[in-house]
């Protein structure tokens, strides 16, 4: 297992390198001049000022040198450069935003699993009854709903119409847990509903696969109560693929946070990326994309490793 983990970690390196090259080249190819943005238009006309700035920023060196300098700074010092709009260190800015996103994502995933696993199980056990039809229809609808529309409808209904929940703003759970949760409910549900729909489908099909297996017949023929057959044996086995795919969706969730955080003014890394794109703060865009992509890759690896731990039947290469 340790060897396999190391092997997979080494495999990540080319992927992350490719991502970094991609991000770097894309931003490099953008039109517009950093120096124009940094120095005022009039100052930038002066060739001496330009040359000095170019030298200071390392822009006089060839592209590949600049790439390695950029990457080296990130890997060795964690230095992502400075934000164009605020002038502050990007690394500090971005890492400050991570907890809010993680908080939101974990609650959203938990919420979706709490809804999806019972729904999927019931649908599979009561296959081809009205329960099944309702659940499958609900899940295909959930998959088709755009998250941002669902978020808007939630705000419309729960905060504007009923006035139960606040429509935006983030409150830290360490200051006031109750208030924090109140502020969390809408964004977490809006983020989790799609995942819940996907997981319901998965649970249902995994359960259907399991229920047809021979050990289920054996258990039933031994006279075990149906409840026990379902919950103790079938569901346990069905959960392995379900949790895995739900875990892989976790990465996609990180992407979904961009939209949700923008709607709810949730100060996470998704909102940082969105703000950076809107204000054309490209070093910030680079950094947030790089961090989100790395998180995505690492989460996927973690899920894969957990899956292997849970399921010893999988051969280690």
């Amino acid at each position, binding site marked *: 297992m340790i060897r396999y983990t190391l092997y997979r970690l080494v495999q990540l390196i*080319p*992927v992350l390198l*490719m*991502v970094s090259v*991609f*991000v770097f080249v*894309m931003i490099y*190819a*953008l*039109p*517009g001049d950093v120096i124009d943005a940094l120095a005022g238009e009039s100052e930038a006309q002066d060739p001496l000022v330009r040359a000095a700035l170019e030298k200071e920023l390392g822009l006089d060196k060839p592209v590949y040198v600049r790439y390695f300098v950029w990457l080296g700074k990130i890997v060795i010092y964690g230095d992502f450069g400075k934000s164009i709009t605020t002038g502050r260190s990007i690394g500090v800015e971005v890492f400050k935003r991570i907890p809010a996103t993680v908080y939101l994502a974990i609650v959203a995933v938990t919420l979706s699993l709490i809804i999806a696993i019972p729904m999927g199980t019931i649908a599979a056990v009561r296959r081809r009854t009205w329960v099944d039809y309702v659940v499958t*229809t609900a899940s*295909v*609808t959930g*998959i*088709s*709903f*755009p*998250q*941002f*529309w669902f978020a*808007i*409808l939630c*705000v*419309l209904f729960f905060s*504007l119409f009923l006035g139960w929940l606040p429509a935006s703003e983030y409150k830290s759970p360490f200051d006031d847990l109750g208030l924090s949760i109140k502020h969390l409910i809408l964004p977490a549900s809006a983020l989790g509903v799609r995942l819940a729909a996907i997981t319901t489908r998965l649970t*249902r*099909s995994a359960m*259907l696969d399991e229920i047809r297996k021979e050990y289920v017949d054996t258990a039933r023929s031994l006279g075990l109560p149906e409840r026990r057959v379902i919950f103790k044996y079938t569901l346990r086995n069905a959960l392995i693929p379900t949790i895995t795919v739900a875990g892989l969706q976790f*990465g*996609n969730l*990180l*992407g*979904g946070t*961009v*939209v949700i955080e*923008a*709607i709810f003014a949730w100060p996470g890394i998704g909102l940082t*990326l*969105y703000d950076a*794109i*809107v204000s*054309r703060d*490209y070093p910030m*865009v680079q950094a947030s*994309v790089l961090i*989100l*992509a790395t998180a*995505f*890759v690492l989460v*996927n690896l973690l899920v894969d490793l957990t899956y292997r731990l849970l399921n010893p039947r999988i051969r280690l290469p």
Partner: protein
Amino acid sequence: MARASITSTPEGFDFETADLARLSPKIRLWRGLKEAAWELWRNRLASIGAAMVIILFLVAIFAPVLATHNPVKQNYREMLQTPSEAHYFGTDKFGRDIWSRTVWGARRLVIIAVLAVCLGMLGGIPLGAISGYFGGKLDAVLMRVVDAWLAFPGILFYLLAASFIRAYELSLFWNTVGLIVALGAARMPSMARLVRGSVLAEREKEYVEASHVIGESHLYIVFRQILPNCLSPVIIQATIALGFELLIITSLSFLGLGAPPPTPDWGADLNLAREHMVTRPYLAIFPGLAISYAVLGFNLFGDGLRDMLDPRIADR
């Protein structure tokens, strides 16, 4: 044992299907389509999905006829009107008719989604087919690239592409082209992997060996003989992908990173509606319904196609 299984008829052996194999490809295709149509009819949800997709395409085609107003013309005398006979879905804060914008938006979105998926297939299918057929080092290299490509979260790619397109301040046409290229490029790796998987299974079959013996060229074998047998999963995937692309395009325009205003776009209209949520909630309803309708249609239709074309995973 092996002999017995050849001479005796296995239970439930389908003579009609067996006969089909001997018919000419054209008739086979026709019969196949007829079969497909019947199955489609039988699967009710799938037919609802098919109907929804057909209606969506009809709306997209006949947008100029269906629209009652100019979708981009501002009319400050008719700002923020509630739905009425003159304006079926009401008007937005610029006095633009939401119904007309929804209809024209359908045309734009359908065109983008279809072209993007086509581009994804155009790039992904040959890549996957060649990789799977020739195998070896070429396959290893190509699949590593595909893996890395897939490891990059899609939404980040779209956001990067959108900000890239925005930075160039392109005209609407080139903006749209850029979007299609980005969506298509992101679609390629998953298509390639899908096709590669089927081709790997297919190339071991006897008919391929027979073609080698006859001396057909590799390219002929891959593209004319193997590939047609690998297309069902691609068709399923493409249908569902259409819905997914719609979600992505509207998400981007919702964030204000899509086409420049006043282009009719469901996502952009929803974003605009957020300003008037308290007084004019219906503004947020119709564009959202339109997106959900279109995506649901493609998803239901895709699920139905899967049940039909891929019996192994039917009833899931």
